[in-house]
């Protein structure tokens, strides 16, 4: 149950196939695997589906649109409400070159959690009576109506943590957790960039945010500075 340590983010993502579904951790600037995203850009895979909280909001995911690597995005923030600034993804979406599936944030995380936890779905009120309910099963139970949301998984997950050890244990800092711990459970191949690789035991057992068994690959990188200015 050792995680494989890679020397560079490029080598860690090199064998991701075209057409893969990739879960990308992070929330705007926090806990976002920007080194791995940039490596994916250099690596040049195409036809990818990205599952992430946001695209084009200070994250670097939008960089993957420069060479049209993204066929589809599943996200909660994708198109800015005001038209004053636009992302590459927005342009490709409007041109019909990339698909968008918008998912409420609490539903996105529950679908990912279900995918990682072996659940067949969850019932939520979120989205009832809205466009999000279109084509979805509604259950009426004891007089309440619930939307059935199905699991979501990735072929690959790209994560960012603070520290990692050779067992794959990850420790997050501050609000860097967000989507990372759940995405770690919901993909076949889990790749994490960390600021520091430490010896097993250096991360206290109570401070492990993602137990090592979920993580397949680790790469130590200086974080890419990212900031969203609205």
């Amino acid at each position, binding site marked *: 149950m050792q995680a494989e340590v890679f020397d560079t983010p490029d080598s860690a993502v090199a064998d991701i196939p075209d057409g893969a579904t990739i879960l990308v951790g992070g929330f705007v600037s926090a806990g976002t695997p920007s080194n791995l995203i940039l490596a994916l850009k250099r690596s040049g895979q195409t036809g990818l589906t990205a599952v992430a909280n946001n695209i084009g909001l200070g994250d670097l995911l939008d960089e993957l649109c420069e060479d049209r690597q993204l066929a589809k995005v599943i996200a909660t923030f*994708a*198109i800015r*409400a005001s038209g004053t600034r636009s992302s590459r993804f927005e342009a490709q979406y409007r041109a019909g070159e990339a698909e968008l599936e918008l998912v*409420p*944030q*609490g539903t996105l995380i529950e679908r990912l959690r279900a995918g990682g936890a072996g659940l067949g779905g969850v019932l939520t009120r979120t989205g009832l009576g809205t466009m999000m309910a279109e084509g979805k099963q509604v259950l009426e139970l004891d007089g309440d109506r619930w939307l059935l949301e199905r699991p979501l998984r990735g072929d690959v997950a790209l994560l960012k943590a603070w520290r990692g050890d050779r067992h794959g244990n990850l420790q997050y800092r501050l*609000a860097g*957790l967000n989507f990372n711990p759940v995405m770690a459970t919901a993909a076949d191949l889990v790749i994490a960039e960390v600021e520091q690789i430490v010896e097993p035991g250096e991360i206290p057992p109570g401070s492990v945010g993602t137990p090592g068994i979920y993580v397949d690959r680790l790469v130590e990188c200086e974080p890419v500075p990212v*900031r969203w200015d609205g």
Partner: protein
Amino acid sequence: MADRTPPTGLSRELIALRAAQELEPGSVVNLGIGLPTLVAGFVDPSDEILFQAENGILGYSGISDSEFDSDLINAGGQPVDLVPGASFFDTADSFAMIRGGHIDAAVLGGLQVSAQGDLANWYVPARGGGSVGGAMDLAVGARKLIVAMAHVTREGESRIVEACNYPLTAERCVDVIVTDLAVIDVTEHGLILRERAPGISEAVVEEWTDAPLIIPDDVPEMSL
């Protein structure tokens, strides 16, 4: 309607200030992106209001002036300061908190609010695509939902309508509407005008509201 000139009401900052007055001391509050984030700047620290950011923070005090730390941001990507007793958690736990009814109040922006309290705030049909973020979960889960928005669009159309023609965020979820012109309660009897912005008459509020509005006697001006 578009050929009339909308009245000049409160600034964005004053809408935020008035919305802040709706928050109970000691309550747990989530602020939406945009105008609502300004609300954090207008609460009295002695009220010990605890702000939750859906990206995984309970207990930030406001926007930070310190050096930017990319891992310490609110849901709008802004740097924040923490209060003693703050905590971090992941998105699953954050939305369990929101959807599970553990947030006392949310302040969200709005595009339209209907007479029944339906909210539309995530999708501008003319632009398409949209960004939903946590709005649908907050609208469904927060115990009290305050919508803070401009009363009238730039094109001169009321944002308070009989029925929303923008796609909904959630049905029958809004409790209070705070605009540049008025404070309006959404009740089982309909929309009730509670306060007018300084210098704005009941008649002006009614004129720019495209839904039936109950106007009690002697509607006071806001005290800001």
